[in-house]
């Protein structure tokens, strides 16, 4: 963690351009929470890398003053894995939406959790494809009418929390973007956690999802920390995560410990981050390697 004489605030992490999100979009709360979390953790902008895919929420790296990459649809996690492998001292925060992360990029979600790569993944889950103006996503509720399902969605939605736990993620949380203080606290825990941490954030799309609104969540949300919950008990965590009715839990569902990808990768055991290492290859040696391959 950085030690710095100057205390930075969330404002110091404000990007140069303003968000193009609709007024009232849940993503503003997520952006604020990330900025506040990294400031409170004492980081400086160059110590954070924000990586995203494609979608409304994936525009976030443009609005935050850190290193950033806005990558391909669904590919934020493999890209972030590459960043982490190249410089495992970098704090990598991955952001994106539910369509990007659980739909077209769903396979990467599974495998990043399995590898337990030390990334913090913040998913802005609005249960709809917003950038393309309102089609069902992998988290849309059954029966939901959208432009692609005027007859109502017939497909069972994915449960990101239980999926993440089952696939091996070691920090799994859920939050609501309307509660910045709570979300920011969870992001801080997630960034500090060593291993793959995922926070599924309800981030309402006020334009295209008129079912899962701010009011919808405010009426239903209960915080796990307000009652007894053992975060090392994955079974109860899954049971509580399955509830999506009158009660919807937020908070840290599960935290466990096992080696992360950087811990088990032999190349990274000594010598520091790859990106800072000398190649140490003379002209003759390089020539020898190239001829050997011909």
């Amino acid at each position, binding site marked *: 963690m950085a030690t710095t004489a100057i205390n930075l605030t969330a404002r110091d992490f404000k990007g140069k351009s303003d968000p193009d999100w609709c007024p009232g979009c849940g993503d503003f709360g997520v952006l604020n929470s990330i900025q506040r979390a990294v400031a409170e953790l004492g980081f400086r902008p160059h110590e954070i890398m924000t990586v995203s895919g494609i979608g409304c929420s994936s525009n976030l790296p443009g609005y935050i003053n850190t290193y950033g990459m806005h990558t391909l*649809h669904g590919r934020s996690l493999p890209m972030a894995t590459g960043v982490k492998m190249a410089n495992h001292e970098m704090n990598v925060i991955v952001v994106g939406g539910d369509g990007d992360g659980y739909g077209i990029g769903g396979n990467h979600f599974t495998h990043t959790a399995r590898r337990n790569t030390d990334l913090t993944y913040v998913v802005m889950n609005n249960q709809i494809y917003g950038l393309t103006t309102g089609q069902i996503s992998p988290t849309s509720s059954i029966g939901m009418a959208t432009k692609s399902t005027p007859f109502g969605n017939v497909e069972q939605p994915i449960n990101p929390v239980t999926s993440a736990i089952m696939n091996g993620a070691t920090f799994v949380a859920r939050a609501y973007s309307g509660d910045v203080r709570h979300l920011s606290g969870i992001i801080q825990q997630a960034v500090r956690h060593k291993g793959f941490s995922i926070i599924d954030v309800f981030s309402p799309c006020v334009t295209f999802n008129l079912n899962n609104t701010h009011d919808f969540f405010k009426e239903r949300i209960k915080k796990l920390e307000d009652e007894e919950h053992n975060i090392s008990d994955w079974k109860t965590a899954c049971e509580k995560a399955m509830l999506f009715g009158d009660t919807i839990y937020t908070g840290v569902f599960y935290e466990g410990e096992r080696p992360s990808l950087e811990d088990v990768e032999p190349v990274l055991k000594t010598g520091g981050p790859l990106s800072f290492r000398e190649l140490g290859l003379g002209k003759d040696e390089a020539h020898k390697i190239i001829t050997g391959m011909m």
Partner: protein
Amino acid sequence: MATVTTKLYQEPKEELISGSEAIGIACALADVDVITAYPIRPYDTVMQYVSRLKADGAFDFDYIIAESEHSQFEIVKHASSVGARTFTGSSGVGWFYAFEAITVTAGLRMPVVAMVGNRALDDPGAFGVEHNDAMAVRDLGWHLYWVATAQEALDMALIAYKVAEDPRVLLPFALSCDGSFLTHSQAIVQVPSQDQVDKFLPAYNRGSLQLHPDNPITVAPQANEDWLMEIRKQTDEAMRRTPAVIKEVYAEFKEVFGRGDDSPFIEQYMCEDADVILVGMGTLAMPTRVAVRRMRETGKKVGFLRVKFFRPFPTEELQEALKGAKGIAVIDRDYSYGSPGYGGVLFHELRSTMYPLDERPVMLNFIAGLGGREVMVSDVEEMVETTQKAIDTGKIDQETTWVAVRE
């Protein structure tokens, strides 16, 4: 298989609709069984329109909103193998993400009909039209057709099924539609009645190639050097047979619906005595025709030729239509980096087409309208002037020109 619950069009009707809606209606009239979708602009306009038809009970089909374009194309390919009539599509990089499935669809000879809502490829992220996305299938065994109007989108979707599903052909069909200019713009379209369409378009029948428990066959086995060349040759033979089938189907279409051009492959506009012929594809036909008309009024002998089928490429028709011209100005809404002489794809295909002729006209290439930039009438006039100058001087200063580009 799905059946139309309500006949959408008992009688022919005039509708004010977009190109995407026209294709959606064609799907309903063709009684498509399986449609797959994944949201991406501008393909999502068709996606939404067929959703509405389904919700209204006007068109019944199995509708799968896939989790990615790759799955979208995989689903229709397999549905096609069991005898379902299928429709899908995408745009730009979404189309590229599906490419593994796209190439296999042609390799397996599945007559899937797909709409490519032409969109610029990333990077940079852009929504506007560019033709490089659809062009990518040109070597794979797909039919590739460039649509210019909403009417043509509807008509060609119906023709596409009949051609693609013909047992002599069995190759997929891509309908290329310029993003925004065609997909989102409304125009008056003559929608035929269901009875007319039923008369024209028979049910899809794969015959002995249909996967069915009563017809146990293997589809897509591994074949290496022992059989691969023969399989490729068969696809080539199918592609060589398709022009005759297209002509036949187009003639039938004209008879049933009372619409259609002289040729299914190319459209000629004031080309007869033209010294300079402009060649292009898709919606840029409109400003180009206007420019040609204006220049004709001032006595310039100019014409416009629209290439409709890019695959199969109408080689002989083009040789015949262009051989009398002194100069040809090819407008490409695409580009091929590092290609021979550095130019657009249509230009290269045309130059290759003209090469065997004894007397070859002067050929110039104009790269225009990329990323949805408008091609203006004045741009077209300038192209003609440049070409005329090359004819007059017998000298080509610059073969390829990027039109209206900031330096």
